[in-house]
């Protein structure tokens, strides 16, 4: 077990180093354009040279990378040359809306998963129906769901605000949550099919193969009771792992939903950084997201080991 964790940690670090190198190279490709963004259309060579010396761009790439990495490890992600913002605090400020959106999306998809799974277990004939629903949901891009919801609930029925984000500090939690309903649904719908597939296959396996189900039935427990008390808890391990994996994955997937609803989270930050050729900001964001993905992957695997003794034994 301890060996496995150490193994995993080493792998994680390798992946993170790869990711930062890749991110660094990627934004360096854009970097020539950062001068362009700062200096405008027709700049002199002297001005460009002076600026790249000031930003440390005239040093060789490996040195630049190591300097950045050294600073980043110590918690200093630099200052954006374009907006003059410190990158660390900016990333932190954008984290709030994104975390809220992720929690909302996970809630929506978990509720949908539990409902569809129990319905399809209780009434077998609905199985194809829920499968179809899941397929439909996984085929519709989240921004399409978002826009259609805006058409329906905002411009036609005037029930919910189309521009979602309202800071809980200034507008209060009620307005804030009201605004997050549609984005959460838009994002949640896109992940729920995977959850449903995993939970349902595990539930079916339990119902078919496990003797405790038969025993519980023989003792006279009603169907729903067996399902809720015994089958669901035993089927959750796969789902919990998947939720952890998906959370990491979603952090980079929120760009579009945040754009649709105007939420100032990590996705918008990344989008703006790319548009403004803000290299330093982008490097910080890439590191943050890569760390999140890797950490959530580890959490997922650990959770699975904790919950399923059969895997721990291996």
């Amino acid at each position, binding site marked *: 077990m301890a060996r496995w964790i150490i193994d995993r940690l080493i*792998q994680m670090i390798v*992946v993170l180093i790869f990711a930062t190198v890749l991110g660094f190279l990627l934004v360096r490709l*854009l970097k020539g354009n950062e001068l362009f963004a700062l200096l405008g259309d027709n700049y002199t060579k002297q001005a460009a040279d002076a600026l790249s010396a000031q930003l440390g761009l005239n040093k060789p790439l490996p040195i630049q990378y190591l300097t950045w990495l050294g600073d980043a490890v110590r918690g200093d992600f630099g200052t954006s040359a374009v907006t003059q913002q410190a990158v660390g605090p900016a990333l932190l400020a954008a984290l709030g809306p994104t975390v809220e959106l992720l929690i909302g999306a996970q809630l929506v998809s978990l509720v949908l998963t539990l409902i569809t799974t129990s319905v399809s277990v209780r009434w077998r004939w609905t199985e194809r129906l829920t499968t179809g629903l899941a397929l439909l949901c996984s085929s*519709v891009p989240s921004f399409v769901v978002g*826009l259609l919801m805006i058409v329906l609930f905002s411009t036609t029925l005037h029930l919910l605000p189309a521009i979602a984000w309202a800071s809980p500090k200034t507008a209060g939690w009620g307005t804030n949550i009201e605004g997050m309903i549609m984005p959460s649904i838009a994002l949640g719908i896109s992940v729920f099919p995977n959850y449903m597939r995993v939970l349902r296959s595990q539930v079916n396996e339990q119902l078919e193969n496990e003797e405790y189900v038969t025993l519980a039935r023989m003792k006279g427990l009603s169907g729903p009771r067996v399902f809720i008390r015994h089958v669901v808890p035993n089927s959750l391990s796969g789902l919990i792992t998947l939720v952890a994996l998906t959370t*990491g994955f979603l952090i980079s997937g929120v*760009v*579009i939903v945040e754009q649709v609803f105007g939420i100032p989270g990590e996705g918008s930050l*990344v989008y703006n950084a790319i548009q403004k050729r803000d290299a330093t900001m982008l490097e910080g964001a890439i590191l943050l997201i890569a760390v999140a993905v890797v950490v959530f992957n580890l959490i997922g695997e650990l959770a699975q080991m904790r919950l399923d003794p059969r895997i721990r034994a291996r």
Partner: protein
Amino acid sequence: MTQLALPDADLAWVEGPQDQRFRRSARGALRAVATPSVAIPGAVFLLVVLACFAGPALFGIPGPNAGSITSTMLPLGSPGHLLGTNELGNDELSRLLFGGRVSIIVGVGATAISLLAGCLLGMSACYFGGFYEKFIMRLFDTLLAFPSLILALAIADYLGPALRNTILAISVFGVSQFGRLAWSQTLRIRDRDFVVAPRADGARGRRIIFGHILPNVIPPLLGLALFNVGTAMMMEAGLSYLGLGIAQPNPSWGNMISDGQQYLYNAPRLVIMPCIALVVALVSLNLTADAIARRQETRA
């Protein structure tokens, strides 16, 4: 190799002439397609493809940018413009069809590139092993952990919004998925007789990989590819929606949606129509892929 254990039918199959084998496998493939659960959504998707590629020429629909400023924002069902026109007077139906073309080309093109790259990397990693394998597998991990949309956004932004660049940017995503599948499939057969025997016979690595491993690895990869076409089309829509995919004035379902967004109150059809087109194409494609995958599962 023992052939004793094979039933007669299989023996005839193994020893039969090449063309007969081909005819048989073709018949098998046909049988796999000839069920309603595959054929119906498949036919819908093919209809969409056909409409996009042949429709404009067949029905004499005007070009996607041939509109005139005198006929802007015509409603649904206007004479000559079945689905109306947009804010520049361009025919919506035409833009929808030409946009579908782009979407399908990007989906298929990006999938082909990621299939090729992933398959080669995954197979060779598993076959050659050692440090090379470790390196490639960590590379796949990185591509999965790396914020993939950012990768595509940055690539698309750096290369500029154009069809070829969009295909390239989107193809990067699929590589690790195909690669991992190719790797695990190769692992399954790496030590089987038909791989070990030619190696003992002195065959080169390249020949073994392409002649003996590839035919066994490719079927599940093709199954994944069908799903991946849908995913790539979805990403194209997303990228174009953000303004980093296909650029104006060329239509794409994604950029049509983002353009129509400003008229959401007055003319929601400008958003709803491309949304419907996208959903119909994706749902029919995914239904087909799902049904084929199911049939493969039950037969295996």
